[in-house]
């Protein structure tokens, strides 16, 4: 059921209004690709983007952020947490990335609330945009059941116009009162008609057919497949090519691991404790003082990542640990491909 219809110019006007209140981050064309970037005007966004090279996770979980600042004074110290709460709107988030953000939300909420993430998240509004067809080759979001999202956004836009039309007409679904208020307070758009609903149904039917299945098994069969594959020789065989460069981790929207580092100024009396993205493919990730490494070989690290994505995260959170965006596969200069790995493992049994 649609909540509202918006024309493209209406949407841009709404975004421009939003820009008065929030930093706007959305897809921008650069180097012939799309990237999530901060813009000042709605027209700088390109909502017809196919996919963004990197997910929007950096807007919520930045590559490096300060946890607290400290000061050492006469023998003791004081420390002050740094909570960065710039109101933000992520405009143009695809369903896969919405699923990934839901996972981050869960992880940073679970057990102990991590306010560095959660405060930023609370100040972030998400305007989703649905994909009617795969954004690019190699994605397996349909297999992961993440090519559509029914929650995790404030507003979802369905680009309902025919592909030939010059300007899309968006079917709008509200996810939260924040999203609804944005559209309604803005007094833009109109109430959907029965025709709109029919177009929307048609859109959904087309969509189902448009996504090819890449995996030989269903997402919920992956944990069992991996259970059987712990000792497969495939890990080592594939990882022979692995640079341990971590590009797969760092471009993945569901990777949330981080390192913690201290930085000081030249006087040494003040400083910051920072967290920065880390990745389980990096050699030192599981190394302890004295040099023992719990995952010393690229093969064990590759296995760890794949298990996390397809089994352990789901096991711990009930949410998909991989959203099928294939960013890891594209980022890997060694052309190590997760779909290929799953399918090869399936062959073994």
């Amino acid at each position, binding site marked *: 059921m649609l909540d509202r219809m918006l024309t493209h110019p209406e949407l841009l006007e709404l975004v421009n209004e939003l820009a008065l209140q929030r930093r706007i981050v959305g897809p921008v064309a650069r180097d012939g690709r799309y990237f999530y970037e901060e813009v000042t005007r709605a027209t700088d966004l390109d909502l017809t983007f196919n996919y963004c090279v990197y997910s929007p996770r950096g807007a919520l979980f930045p590559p490096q952020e300060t946890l607290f600042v400290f000061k050492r004074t006469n023998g003791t110290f004081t420390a002050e947490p740094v909570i960065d709460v710039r109101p933000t709107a992520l405009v143009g988030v695809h369903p896969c990335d919405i699923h990934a953000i839901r996972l981050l939300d869960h992880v940073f909420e679970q057990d102990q609330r991590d306010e560095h993430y959660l405060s930023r998240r609370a100040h972030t509004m998400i305007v989703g945009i649905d994909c009617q067809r795969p954004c690019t080759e190699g994605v397996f979001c349909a297999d992961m059941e993440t090519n559509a999202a029914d929650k995790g956004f404030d507003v979802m836009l369905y680009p309902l116009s025919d592909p030939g039309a010059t300007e899309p007409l968006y079917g709008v679904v509200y996810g939260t009162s924040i999203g609804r208020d944005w559209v309604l307070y803005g007094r833009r758009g109109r109430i959907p008609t029965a025709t709109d609903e029919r177009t929307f149904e048609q859109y959904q039917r087309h969509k189902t057919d448009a996504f090819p299945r890449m995996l030989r098994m269903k997402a919920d069969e992956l944990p069992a497949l991996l259970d059987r594959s712990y000792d497969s020789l495939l890990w080592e065989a594939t990882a022979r090519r692995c640079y*341990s460069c*971590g590009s797969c981790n760092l471009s993945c929207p569901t990777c949330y691991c981080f390192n913690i580092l201290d930085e000081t100024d030249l006087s040494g009396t003040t400083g910051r404790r920072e967290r920065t993205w880390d990745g389980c493919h990096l050699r030192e990730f599981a190394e302890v003082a004295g040099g023992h490494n719990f995952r010393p070989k690229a093969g064990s690290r590759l296995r760890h990542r794949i298990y996390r994505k397809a089994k352990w995260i789901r096991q711990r959170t009930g949410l998909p640990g991989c959203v099928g965006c294939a960013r890891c596969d594209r980022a890997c*200069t060694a052309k190590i491909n997760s779909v290929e790995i799953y399918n090869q493992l399936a062959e073994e049994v």
Partner: protein
Amino acid sequence: MKPRIAIFSLTGCEGCSLAILELEDQLLDLLGAVDIVNFREGMTDRAWDIDIGFVDGAVSTPEDEKEVRHFREHCKVLVAIGSCACLGGINTLKHYQGATGPKGRGAIGENGSDAYRRYVYGDKAEWFPTTEARPISAVVKVDYELPGCPMVKEEFLAFVTSLLAGRTFKLPDFAVCVECKKRGTLCLYEKGILCLGPVTRAGCNAICPAFGSKCEGCRGIVSKEALVAAGINLREQYNVELQEVLDDLRLYGAYQEADLP
């Protein structure tokens, strides 16, 4: 007591020492935190009781060898800065000339391998004493290395602050790609360019890819395993022989070749 610091230069472009002067925003704080007691490029006075000595440039003449031993003797901590001092740097390219051939990192005089000298100085070649170009660690014990062509000035600052704060300083143990991802740079492989990032030690904040240019490996090879993987990938995935890429890797770090597979 403020640490007494010296900055020395051997064979190189002195860009690394210069990089210290380019820390404009931090220079006054730096001068407040340390005493620079010996820095020919920037000052006249020179002293010889030194806590931390930074050396840029490679060892490439008998004179360099003598000097670097002298530095070692007078510095409690000796730090190689820049690719020349850490890896031999661009100077080592001279060994890939004329009769020497690509693999002949031999001593001067062998197989006419001082062809480079003749090319520049003609029949006066003998007047210019030169030896194999080497990182300073090939001659003396080095406590820390800050590679990069030029040295990454932010890393230099991080090094000095770590030392002042009592933190152990460690070079990143991961590849440049990590920093590309953190910066959000489009990977050059997506533009069909074989970048050396996956085999090169990070710490430069992936500045070359960020400016559209492939990583040239100036910070040295991150690990042997990565290089082995490169050999396999280039042949199997990209149809390129490792040797061609080695030619690129040689730009700043031909001396590493001893460690290559």
